[in-house]
C-alpha cells in the first residue's frame, strides 16, 4: 500500500502554499482507502453535509472512503473509541468528544501540520480548544465543527421582560455588539428569583450530566473558583470556591425542586413546554420548539452568560477529529481534515445543522446562518460569541486535563451544590470535595 498512499512529503508540499488539500493523486483509488467514524448528529439531516463534503473530497483525491456515523446514544461512540484504542485497529479518523483527545493522547497521530495550515486560514482557536486538543507543543486532534457547541442562556423574551424586567433583545441586539454590562451574576440571581416567584423558574439542572456540569463550571469560573489549579494543586478550600458555593446555593433555591435529578433532556423539555424563562443550552431546544411549540420558539433568544467578579464565562464543548496512530493512511486522513475545515465546508455544516454546529476558529463566528435564523429574526446571532464578549471555557479548567476530566465526569461541582443545598455544612462539603479531588490526581 505504501506505494499508493499519500506520503508525508507530498502532503507537506501540497499544503505549503496554504492551499487546502489538493493532493497528490493519480488514477482511481491511487491514494488508497480511508475509514472515518463520525459522530451521528442528532439534528435530522445534519450528517448529509459531512457526507457530501467527504464524498467531494474523495472523488477529487481518488480515495475510497468509508464513513460510519456512530451515535452517542448509550455512549456507543465512547465504547467504540475505547475498543479501537485497545485493539489498535478500526477507523483512521474518529470524532472524539470533548475530553477524549487528552485521554487517548498516546494513541493519536500529531496534527501540528494540519493545525498550522488551518490556523493560518481560519484564524486562531479559542483557549478551550488549545486546552483540550493540545499537549505542550503537540496538537492531538483538529477541532470539529460538527457537534461543537456553546451552552449559553436561551431566554424567553416575554417571560424575562414580564417577570424580571429584562429586555434580552436589547441586551444582546441582533447584528450588534452586546449591551450587557449590567448582566451580572447578581442580576441573574434577581431574575431567577423573580421568575421563580412568577411561576416560570430558570431551568438549570443540578444533575450529573453535562448540561448541569457546564453551567456550574461557568458560574464557578466567574468567581475564579477552581477545585484544582493549573499546576495540579488542590484548591477546594479557597475563598472563590466558598463564594461560588454560597451563590449557587442561593440560585438553587429558585430552581425547580427536582433539579438534582435533571439530565440533558430535562432543560430542553422545560423550555419547550413553556414552564421556564431561561435554560442554558445550544439551540437544539429552540429548534425543537420551532417544530413542536412555535409560540415558544418565537419568544426565544440565545445570548451570553452573566458576568461574575472574575469575568464572563460560557461553557464551550468542542468535538475533535483525531487520527489514530495506527491509521494506515495518515496523509490522506490529514488531507481530509483540511477539507472538512475550509470556510465553505464549515458554512455548510453550520447551515445544515440549523446553526447548532460551531467552528472553533476566530474568523468563522459570523456566518450568515446565525444572523438569519428565525423566528425571531436574529435569535442565534450571539450564539457563536461573535463579539468575543465572553470567555469560552469548560468546567473544571484550568486543572490538568486528566484531573479536570474526572471532576467533570464525576460532576463534582454539582454534587457539591446539592450536598450543600440539602443541608450539609459548607466545610463538610468542601472536605468531601477535597478528598474526591485528591483521588482524581492520582497518576
Amino acid at each position: 500500500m505504501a506505494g499508493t498512499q499519500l506520503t508525508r512529503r507530498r502532503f507537506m508540499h501540497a499544503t505549503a502554499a496554504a492551499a487546502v488539500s489538493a493532493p497528490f493523486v493519480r488514477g482511481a483509488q491511487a491514494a488508497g482507502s480511508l475509514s472515518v467514524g463520525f459522530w451521528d448528529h442528532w439534528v435530522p439531516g445534519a450528517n448529509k453535509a459531512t457526507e457530501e463534503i467527504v464524498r467531494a473530497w474523495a472523488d477529487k483525491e481518488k480515495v475510497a472512503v468509508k464513513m460510519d456515523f456512530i451515535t452517542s446514544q448509550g455512549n456507543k461512540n465512547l465504547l467504540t473509541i475505547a475498543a479501537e484504542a485497545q485493539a489498535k485497529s478500526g477507523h483512521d479518523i474518529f470524532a472524539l468528544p470533548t475530553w477524549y483527545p487528552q485521554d487517548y493522547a498516546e494513541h493519536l497521530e500529531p496534527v501540528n501540520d494540519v493545525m498550522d495550515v488551518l490556523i493560518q486560514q481560519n484564524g486562531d482557536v479559542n483557549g478551550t480548544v488549545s486546552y483540550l486538543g493540545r499537549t505542550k507543543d503537540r496538537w492531538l486532534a483538529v477541532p470539529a465543527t460538527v457537534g461543537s457547541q456553546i451552552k449559553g442562556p436561551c431566554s424567553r423574551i416575554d417571560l424575562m421582560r414580564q417577570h424580571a424586567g429584562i429586555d434580552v433583545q436589547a441586551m444582546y441586539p441582533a447584528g450588534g455588539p452586546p449591551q450587557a454590562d449590567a448582566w451580572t451574576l447578581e442580576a441573574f440571581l434577581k431574575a431567577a428569583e423573580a421568575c421563580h416567584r412568577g411561576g416560570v423558574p430558570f431551568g438549570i439542572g443540578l444533575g450529573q450530566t453535562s448540561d448541569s456540569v457546564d453551567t456550574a463550571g461557568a458560574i464557578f469560573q466567574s468567581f475564579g473558583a477552581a477545585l484544582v489549579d493549573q499546576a495540579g494543586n488542590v484548591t477546594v478550600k479557597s475563598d472563590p470556591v466558598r463564594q461560588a458555593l454560597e451563590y449557587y446555593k442561593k440560585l438553587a433555591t429558585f430552581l425547580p425542586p427536582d433539579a438534582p435529578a435533571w439530565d440533558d433532556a430535562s432543560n430542553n423539555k422545560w423550555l419547550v413546554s413553556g414552564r421556564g424563562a431561561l435554560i442554558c443550552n445550544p439551540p437544539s431546544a429552540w429548534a425543537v420548539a420551532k417544530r413542536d411549540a412555535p409560540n415558544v420558539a418565537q419568544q426565544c433568544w440565545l445570548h451570553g452568560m452573566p458576568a461574575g467578579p472574575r469575568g464572563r464565562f460560557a461553557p464551550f464543548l468542542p468535538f475533535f477529529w483525531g487520527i489514530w496512530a495506527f491509521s494506515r493512511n495518515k496523509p490522506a486522513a490529514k488531507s481530509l481534515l483540511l477539507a472538512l475545515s475550509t470556510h465553505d465546508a464549515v458554512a455548510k455544516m453550520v447551515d445544515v445543522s440549523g446553526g447548532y454546529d460551531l467552528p472553533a476558529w476566530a474568523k468563522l463566528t459570523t456566518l450568515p446562518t446565525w444572523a438569519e435564523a428565525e423566528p425571531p429574526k436574529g435569535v442565534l446571532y450571539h450564539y457563536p460569541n461573535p463579539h468575543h464578549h465572553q470567555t469560552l471555557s469548560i468546567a473544571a479548567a484550568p486543572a490538568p486535563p486528566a484531573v479536570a476530566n474526572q471532576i467533570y465526569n464525576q460532576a463534582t461541582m454539582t454534587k457539591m451544590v446539592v450536598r450543600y443545598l440539602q443541608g450539609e455544612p459548607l466545610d463538610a462539603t468542601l472536605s468531601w470535595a477535597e478528598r474526591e479531588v485528591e483521588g482524581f490526581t492520582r497518576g
Partner: protein
Amino acid sequence: MPDGVISAQPDATAAKFQFGAARNFFRQRSTVGFLFTLPLILLILILVIYPSFYAAYLSTLNKRMTSFVGLANFAFLFTRETFWMVVKQSCLFAVTAVFLKAVIGFVVAHLVNATPARGQRKWRGMLLVPWVMPPALSTLTWLWLFDPSYSALNWLLALVGLGPVPWTGDAAWARLSVIVVNVWYGAPFFMIMYLAALKSVPAELYEVAAIDGAGWWQRLWYITLPMMRNIIAITTLFSLIVTFANFDIVWILTAGGPVDRTHVFATWAFRLGIQGGDIPLGASVSLFMVPILAVAAIFILRDVNKRAERI
C-alpha cells in the same frame, strides 16, 4: 498375483482399522457430547474467559495504562467513600430486589397454578411480558413515568391530592424507583421458574397429605417448599448475579444519581472507566463483583449439592 496387490493388503487393513477406531471414537457418548458443546465452549472462551482475564490485566495498570501497578487500583478504591457507598448500594439493591422478586414470583406462580387450565396459558403469556421486553426499552417507559416534571405517576397522585414525589431526584425515592423497575422486570422469571417447579410436584403427595388432614400451610411448608427448594436456590443465585451486575436499568433511570446514591458496580465502573477515561480503575470496580458473587455462589450451590446427594 502381482506384487503390488500383495503389498497393498496390509495398507487396506490399516486403513480399515483406523476407520474403525475413528468410528468408535465418534461413537463414544462423551466425544459426541464434547463436540456438541464445543461451540459453546469456544463462545465462553472468547466472550467470557478472555475478557475476564483481560479485565484482570487492565486492573493492574496505571491510569494511562503505561505501567504495571499491581493491586494499587484496588488499594486506592478502598480509600474512596464513593466505593464503599457503591458496595453498600449494590448489596442493598441486589438483596432487596431479589427478595421481592422471589416473593412476588412465588405468590404469582401459585395464583397462576391455581387458575383453571383453560385460562392459564393467557395469564402466563401476559405475566411474562415485562421479562421478554428489552429492559432498556421498558426502562425508558418507566423513566417517562418517573419524570420529575411531567410524570404520569405524579399526575395521578395529584388527582388524589398527593405528591408530587421526586421519583429520581431524592436519594431514597431514586433507590426505591430502581428497585421497583428491577422487580417489575425480573419477577416474571421467578414466576415461570416456580411455576415449572410447582407443576413437577407429584399430585399424589398433596392427595396423601389431604387425607392425613394437612392444611394449606402444612402442605406448603412440608411438601411444596421442600420440593421447590433447589429451584428456589438456583433461581435466586442466577437472579442475584444478574441483579448485582445490573447496568441498563440503573443507568437509564438515574445514571447513578442523585449524588451517586444509586450507583451499582457496573454503572460506577462505566462512569470511571469509559466516561472518566480511567479504564484500569473501572476494570477494578467491575472485578470487585467477582469475590462477592463467588461467595454467594459457593454457599448456595453447596446447599444444592448437599440436597442432591441426600436425594
